[in-house]
């Protein structure tokens, strides 16, 4: 009786762990698929598309992740066959430095220019008003 109960329990546990694993695998597959482009669609990710190739590639991803491949390895697999075009997150290479760092460099440059300009304008205005004050004093003396 005890044996049956404990084996049933073990089975139940295994099944629930397996389905939790299943859900976790699902999530990994979909997260990765969302980063890859569907090549036969206009502009959809592998996660969104229902095209034949997209389904095939999602199955590939699932099979590889289930076998223990890392996300990195799966991505390399796809890029080896389809090129960088398949990545929705552009790889960081010399040719994409401008893409990835451009906006932030521009932001910092913009803020610096802004601060310098405002300061310089403030200084000029103070000098100007200083000059005006002196002149006003002079005029009053006359």
């Amino acid at each position, binding site marked *: 009786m005890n044996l049956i109960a404990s084996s049933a329990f073990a089975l139940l546990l295994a099944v629930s762990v397996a389905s939790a694993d299943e859900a976790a695998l699902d999530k990994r597959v979909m997260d990765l698929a969302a980063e890859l482009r569907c090549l036969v669609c*206009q*502009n959809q990710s592998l996660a*969104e598309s229902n095209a034949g190739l997209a389904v095939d590639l999602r199955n590939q991803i699932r099979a590889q992740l289930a076998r223990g491949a890392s996300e990195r390895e799966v991505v390399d697999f796809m890029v080896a066959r389809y*090129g960088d*075009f398949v990545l929705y*997150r552009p790889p960081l290479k010399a040719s994409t430095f*401008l*893409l990835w760092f451009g*906006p932030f460099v521009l932001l910092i440059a913009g803020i610096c220019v802004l601060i310098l300009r*405002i300061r310089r304008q403030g200084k000029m205005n103070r000098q100007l008003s200083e000059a005006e004050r002196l002149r006003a004093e002079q005029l009053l003396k006359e």
Partner: protein
Amino acid sequence: MTPELGQFALCLALIVALAQSFFPLLGASRQNFGWMALARPAAQAQALLVAFAFGCLTYAFVANDFSVAYVAAHSNSALPLHYRVAGVWGGHEGSLLLWALMLGVWMTAVSLFSTHLPEEIVARVLGVMGLVSAGFLAFLLFTSNPFDRLLPPAADGRDLNPLLQDPGMVLHPPMLYMGYVGFSVAFAFAVAALLSGRLDATWARWSRPWTTVAWAFLTVGIALGSGWAYYELGWGGWWFWDPAGNASFMPWLGVTALIHSLAVTEKRGAFRSWTVLLAIVAFALSLLGTFLVRSGVLTSVHAFAVDPARGVFILALFVLLIGGALVLFAWRTSRIGLGGSFELASRESALLANNVLLAVAAVSVMLGTLYPLVLDALGVGKISVGPPYFEAVFVPLMAPALFLMGVGPLARWKRTSLPELAVLLRWALGVSLAIGLALPFAFGRWSALVGFGLALAVWVASTAFLAWKKRPTHSRAHLGMVVAHLGVAVFVVGVTLVKGYEAEKDLKMKPGDSLELAGYTFLLEDVSAADGPNYRAARARIAVSREGKPVTVLYPEKRVYTVQDMPMTEAAIDPGLTRDLYVSLGDPLEGAYWLVKVQHKPFVDWVWAGCLIMALGGLLAASDRRYRVAARERSGAEATA
């Protein structure tokens, strides 16, 4: 006969447009009042002619005139009437005619509501708009004529793209174009100011309501486009960072910067040259957007049928209009001075910083959209730039901008005391941090990103409230600002919560199966045939319940539109204040099984509600007394004289 009349009307309109630009512009520089006076009637005549042409095309659609090539390509006799009308702007040529129509509407509005403006300025503004209009009418007549005949006539049409047979489609392009095209008014005011050499606060005051109203329309247009994609494309996405979406978002960012910059130029006479430049750039972004979706240079889910030859024309128009304006800018402004005198800690600085952030954000969107083209043109290879890039770059840029939204309205002009500001903001900061830290727990899973987003949203909302409270009386302009900023807060809440907590499940189901998600139970009751006027469909009945109590019944469909043999997923959505339930039917499988996808989207409707509130705020601000006072005074003076 009617199509030919329409085409003739367009030809006439082109001639009038050329006259509308030639005479008033020349007249303004020579102080020839006769020529300047031509501007208003010419604008109105042009608008009438374009409206007539538009009417002819609509008639061709409604009457199923398949001897017109455009009608044959985008309509069908089985297409319901309201979609036949919407089909007028369902393709490239017709949507351009819609562009021209909207331009006519704006020109008429300027001609009617500008009685308080000097004749010289009106002449110049309408003159510049006439040039833009001439460009687009020429584009229509020479490369994209909607009235081209198809002989022999088709027996029946190829039907409107099923993706466009939707209520959202009826409103989205007109709203979007009202925005896009409306920026030509700001552009025209900027060029007029440059031509007249009058870059002062008055120019900003005149141009501000027009710009704000156009901005409101674009906000609504983009929201409608996003909502339509959510509803229609069937997979629950509402923003894709795709070239077409980005093409409308870039001008939006530019004009948001512009309306803030105009505020400073109007009130303080500062940023004059920068504001003019921004007005030119914002319209340039509108034209760029038009170019991107019609030239074939980039692909997107709803780019038009593409043609590089047309691309060349738009590019030429872009060079002429924008290049010309920039040359004029360089000539008339000795340097881009900031103007005015203000400290580093002041409202002016905060608004300037806002401008920098929005400008960099617009640049980042443009960079991401065009980068694949850059690398391809340089022969370096082909890459894709998708949502992961934009989310990584754009979102961090917006965070400081959202923070500044709290500081700007409460800072004083010229010089603000930081300690005083800190005291004012202390309460708002505390509330934001508290809610940001605590609220995610209510959703079951704490997340730093969600907390951060919520904190920013509460910050924007509470500082907007503070700004409102601080004023003893409220002008509509100020109230509009408060409302618009609240709209932003609502938007941020929606985006944060839906991205943080949305959930979905795909399952093979047959009638009788059920599926659980987010506490809701979805029971597939049956799948039956549900054909429509121009499609065959399979419709599922899904009963939704929560804790045993029925919530709603949803009817997702899988349709095949007969003419183009095109499959479509019609998702079924149960909207709600705190969540949308989204069900779509996939492909049929063996046995009686269907692939069913169910999604739980918390607070997604706040995304679009936020946009609508923003637009409302804009309209409120634009209706402020001070823009109408001059007109009233004038008519009052005339009455007593």
